[in-house]
């Protein structure tokens, strides 16, 4: 009985605290947007891209007068790309009374967090999570400004079948929702084109010695190897493959494309194929925006910088159109279209983009990229 009383009291206290938080948020007349992604951890580089993209959007919207006089405020939150940590971040967003989220970044972290946002009518727009399942649950307030694995995987699979024409295709993944999800898509597309992979195996995320696997790849005679996962493991795979003299063409998804891959693998990255969102930073319409990034010594070419910019922008445009009410904002997102640096965006009923293009790039040892031939 005592316990129940205590429980009731604590519920009451929480409710009061929640109401106070909501009050203080309203009083400050700012519209807060949580920017949730990895600030620490092995893939924090992608978090950087997300943060600079979202912050630039907030800055430019505020400089243009905000939303009907109200300023946008970005609140950074760190999920370290951990599926365990993401719900904690999501609950903090709920408790802080924040109604809009740009994030999360990794599919594994986004999935558990999105359910919490949906339950609490918080609008979430991820600029980076590509796993199909994220938008497949019929959630009304979950969106993304990037394509899905089922768009990216087939792009990679078709490129492998039509251009690389492997004698022996091997597919490796990191057993995470993102890596394995996209590896499955590549396998399905390749098999549809009549190429049966000689190997389809998972590695442990965080492992560092892959020499046994490399020897096995050599043994299998793999001449094209697709890796589904992030850059830390691919960097080690490339480095150890070079060490053992494994000559094969490697390919990976957008989660491997950043400078740190070069730091780990050195010259072994030369000729790696990567599917990335189309590089919108070279579009003439974005020249002023790209210059604004360069003035702040920031790099706008990362795959998630402009998608994050667009995520903030679609939220801000919707608030401007229908007011600061997340339910109405979600409805507006579903039925309108938006002009953003990554093109004219419109969302399907599931919250996916109606159209999104992945492009195959070739990665070089100076961390630059050129469209693949």
């Amino acid at each position, binding site marked *: 009985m005592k316990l129940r009383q205590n429980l009731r009291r604590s519920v009451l206290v929480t409710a009061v605290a929640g109401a106070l938080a909501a009050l203080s948020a309203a009083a400050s007349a700012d519209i807060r947007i949580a920017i949730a992604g990895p600030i620490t951890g092995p893939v924090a580089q992608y978090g950087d891209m997300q943060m600079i993209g979202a912050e630039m959007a907030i800055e430019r919207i505020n400089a243009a007068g905000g939303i009907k006089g109200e300023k946008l405020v970005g609140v950074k939150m760190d999920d370290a790309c951990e599926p365990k940590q993401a719900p904690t971040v999501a609950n903090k967003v709920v408790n802080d009374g924040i109604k809009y989220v740009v994030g999360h970044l990794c599919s594994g972290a986004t999935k558990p967090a999105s359910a919490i946002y949906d339950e609490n009518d918080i609008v979430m727009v991820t600029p980076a999570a590509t796993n199909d399942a994220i938008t497949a649950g019929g959630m009304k307030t979950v969106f993304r400004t990037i394509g899905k694995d089922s768009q990216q995987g087939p792009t990679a699979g078709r490129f492998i079948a039509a251009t690389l024409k492997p004698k022996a295709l091997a597919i490796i993944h990191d*057993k995470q929702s993102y890596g394995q999800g996209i590896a499955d898509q590549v396998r399905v597309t390749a098999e549809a084109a009549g190429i049966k992979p000689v190997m389809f*195996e998972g590695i442990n995320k965080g492992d560092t010695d892959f020499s046994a696997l490399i*020897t*096995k790849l*050599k*043994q299998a005679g793999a001449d094209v190897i697709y890796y589904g996962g992030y850059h830390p493991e691919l*960097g080690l795979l490339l*480095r150890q493959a070079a060490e053992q*003299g494994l000559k094969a063409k490697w390919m990976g998804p957008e989660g491997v494309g950043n400078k740190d891959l070069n730091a780990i693998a050195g010259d072994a990255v030369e000729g790696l194929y990567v599917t990335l969102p189309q590089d919108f930073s070279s579009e003439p319409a974005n020249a002023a925006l790209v210059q604004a990034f360069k003035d702040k010594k920031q790099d706008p070419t990362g795959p998630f910088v402009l998608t994050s910019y667009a995520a903030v922008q679609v939220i801000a445009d919707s608030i401007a159109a229908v007011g600061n009410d997340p339910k109405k904002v979600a409805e507006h997102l579903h039925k309108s279209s938006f002009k953003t640096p990554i093109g004219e965006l419109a969302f399907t009923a599931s919250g996916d983009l109606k159209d999104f293009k992945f492009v195959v790039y070739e990665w070089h040892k100076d961390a630059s990229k050129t469209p693949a031939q």
Partner: protein
Amino acid sequence: MNEFLPNFLPQLTQQLINGLSLGSIYALIAIGYTMVYGIIGMINFAHGEIYMIGAYVGVVTLTALGAASGTLPLTLVLAGALVAAIVVTAAYGWTVERVAYRPLRGGPRLVPLISAIGMSIFLQNYVQLGQGARDVSVPPLLPGNLFSVEIGGFPVSLSVTRALIIGVTVVLMIALTLYIGRSRMGRACRACSEDMGMARLLGIDTDRVISFTFVLGAALAAVGGVLIGLSIGKINPFIGFVVGVKAFTAAVLGGIGSIPGAMLGGVLLGLTETFASAFLPTEYKDVVAFSLLVLVLLFRPTGLLGKPDIEKV
């Protein structure tokens, strides 16, 4: 199928090289676990973090000495990194014992164990705050192979870094065995491990012996850390955990408390993991490695080379 046999032998040779270099690192770290356990009967869970600190000191020194720019000869830079890592990490090993374990000596067994876990978390966060939570990368400094021969159309190669790992480990193991077997300090260590109370009565400074085991264990782990920095080339503040668990497993497999056991256990675990991922899907390698541990412990509860412990009353 007729292609299988001529290919099998070279593949086996290559996997043997892979497994030996992986197992060498486990062995270097396992010795730290086993020596501390052998003498004070406690598991130093912060030992994985000591290894991580060794790797960091090595990488920081490499960068400071300008390894990539090539102003100093590479051998000198590597020697410098090794010495710096050993000295700094040994100091950490000594301090950890002094701060976290010595004040608790004589208390209930669980107390220093909790203190060790706390120390491990502290060191992880301490490095994370000081060095950042992100991966630190080392460019390949020693590229190339010591040898690369083609056997039956399959190239078998031993890279310079892996040769270095195996070579350095073998030398250190021999030196350690000689030192423990022949020197005064080694004799004191063995005496303490047999009966600490009696050793003290006979005039051995047991506190010094305990400090010495921590310093020695840390120095060996530091060598492991620098070698991993060189060959793998990617470290972060969390690498100590997984490697620590694996090395601890190796120590238990070989018989915790036994130095030759730790060496054997490390190499065996490395080979098992490697051959498991060679002949089964890679995701099963840890399953196989830990099943082996369970099997060994079922039939030899004290590990492969461990002596049955007589409970002291």
